[in-house]
């Protein structure tokens, strides 16, 4: 009661606001609920679950995707553990989390295989987190190397080759493709962005102006235009014999785009470094490239990390635009599913479902970014 008075009805206008908000909430909530229960037909989701997640990836090779998921989540958990090794964990929250996961495992209508894999992954996550916290000092230096190595391994597992059955990119669909493209694009745009940022702050006028030109032009263009360019017009700029895979072209478009933004984020980090740092390094006799590599970048990147995570979130959302140029990522596969004769017109359910997937990922990442930011301030 006291809480209500203090937080909702402490003044007359607050009371009015509260009432208005309640009415609004009720109205929206009622509409959504009655639709979800009475009108919506959720069968289209259940039947196509595999399509949403991995698309047309050959079912006999799902174990490869599971391993990829296991690697990625272990690494994530490890990183998370290392990063927050100094903060206390809220064990109640963790228990709750574990409980929810167990509930998912037990009650969702999944086949045995899926459950088994999920169980393994959950165990790996907890183990990774625990290990990361426990031996943060020992693990930390190896983390970035592990991440770096994991990329080719993941690609090998998904794409095949070297002893594994190859899977052409046209079969990489759904969430799998969305995640892959976002991750690869951000990783690739990173070095380019760093170079552009350095170029933009360099004292060589031609280099500086070229970088500014690139960054500003790209940032002035809508992403959909760039993707269209990459998808449709890129081949026109290549010599006749060279054909780029369309997933590759999509990634190229995303990288073109995101490198410019990355450059600005990194530049923000560069500007946060006092001039004295460079001078001190120079005075020690370090040459220009060593100064950048050993002194400037490590500090600048640390400052830029939250912005980079934010950019990754944006890129992750933006991959949905690739459906407009015919890629079958999460939104694209949703459009394909909507063409199944038995589910024509079920767009609300389908879009809501993928909206939820996008949201879960983005929200989780933005929470992580926020904690990271707090961590870095200390």
């Amino acid at each position, binding site marked *: 009661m006291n809480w209500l008075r203090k937080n909702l009805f402490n003044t007359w206008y607050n009371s009015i606001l509260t009432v208005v908000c309640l009415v609004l909430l009720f109205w929206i909530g009622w509409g959504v609920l009655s639709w979800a229960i009475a009108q919506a037909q959720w069968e289209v989701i259940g039947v196509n679950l595999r399509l949403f997640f991995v698309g047309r990836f050959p079912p006999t090779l799902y174990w490869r995707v599971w391993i990829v998921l296991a690697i990625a989540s272990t690494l994530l958990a490890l990183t998370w553990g290392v990063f927050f090794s100094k903060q206390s964990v809220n064990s109640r929250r963790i228990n709750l989390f574990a409980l929810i996961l167990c509930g998912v495992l037990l009650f969702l209508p999944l086949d045995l295989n899926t459950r088994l894999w999920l169980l393994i992954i959950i165990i790996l996550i907890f183990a990774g987190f625990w290990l990361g916290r426990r031996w943060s000092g020992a693990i930390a230096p190896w983390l970035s190397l592990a991440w770096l190595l994991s990329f080719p391994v993941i690609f090998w597992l998904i794409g095949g080759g070297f002893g594994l059955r190859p899977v052409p990119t046209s079969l990489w669909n759904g969430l799998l493709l969305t995640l892959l493209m976002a991750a690869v694009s951000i990783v690739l745009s990173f070095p380019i962005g760093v170079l552009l940022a350095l170029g933009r702050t360099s004292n060589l006028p031609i280099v500086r102006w070229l970088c500014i030109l690139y960054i500003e032009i790209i940032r002035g263009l809508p992403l959909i235009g760039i993707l269209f360019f990459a998808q449709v017009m890129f081949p026109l700029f290549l010599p006749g014999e060279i054909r780029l895979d369309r997933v590759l072209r999509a990634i190229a478009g995303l990288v073109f785009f995101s490198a410019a933004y990355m450059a600005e984020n990194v530049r923000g980090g560069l500007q946060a470094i*006092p001039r*004295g*740092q460079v*001078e*001190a*390094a*120079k*005075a*020690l*006799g*370090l*040459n220009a490239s*060593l100064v950048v590599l*050993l*002194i400037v970048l*490590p*500090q600048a990147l*640390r400052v830029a990390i939250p912005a980079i995570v934010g950019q990754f979130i944006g890129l992750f959302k933006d991959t949905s635009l690739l459906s407009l140029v015919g890629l079958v990522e999460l939104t694209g596969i949703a459009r394909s599913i909507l063409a199944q004769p038995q589910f024509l017109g079920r767009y609300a359910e389908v879009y809501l479902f993928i909206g939820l997937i996008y949201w879960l990922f983005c929200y989780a990442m933005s929470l992580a970014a926020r904690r990271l930011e707090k961590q870095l301030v200390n």
Partner: protein
Amino acid sequence: MSEQKPIIIADNVHKWYGKFHALRGISLTVNLGEVVVLMGPSGSGKSTLIRTFNALEDYQKGKIEIDGITLSHDLRNIEAIRREVGMVFQQFNLFPHLTVIQNITLAPIWVRHLPKVKAKELAIQLLERVGILEQAYKYPGQLSGGQQQRVAIARALAMQPKIMLFDEPTSALDPEMVREVLEVMRSLARDGMTMVVVTHEVGFAREVADRVILMDNGNLVESATPDSFFNNPQEERTRQFLSQIL
């Protein structure tokens, strides 16, 4: 001081920042093992001068020779000179993302290509010398100002320079800490290091300096032994300056 071998020779050095004439024909010779203290009002060009000795600033006219190497645009010369000249800044400028020991070993490993173990040994020796061995594995942010400045000195010494430049090494410090740092500098001077020090610590200048120089408005005004500089200044400008700081 006995041998009188010149190690820094500046000859009619001029420097402009855009239109602003910051150094107006400085000629100065520092001999091996000499301790020179630069004084002067703010903006008189003290920092600018010693930064040119380290090629952190270029100059437009005149000539500077450090240990026989002429400072020019020659890349190798610049590197060679920086290897011979250590510098300590007012704001310490330690690298915050590296531990104390990493700060010190960085240049020996990457510039002098010492093996890591050797560099570490050297660093520990230096930390002992500046009296903060126990802080070796902390990050700069966890140290007091005086400790940080001592790390900065150790870092500069790790390159085993022939000359050390100090730009107001104590003016960002609280009074108690000033003493610690000056103590280290004193011991350096005792060991025969050639030093050019910008400072307003009169006590230090009196005790340690072989020569005290007054700069004003980009010119050298007076250069004398501490005794004559403080007790019997020749120039009107010096008297005026001293009356302010004493």
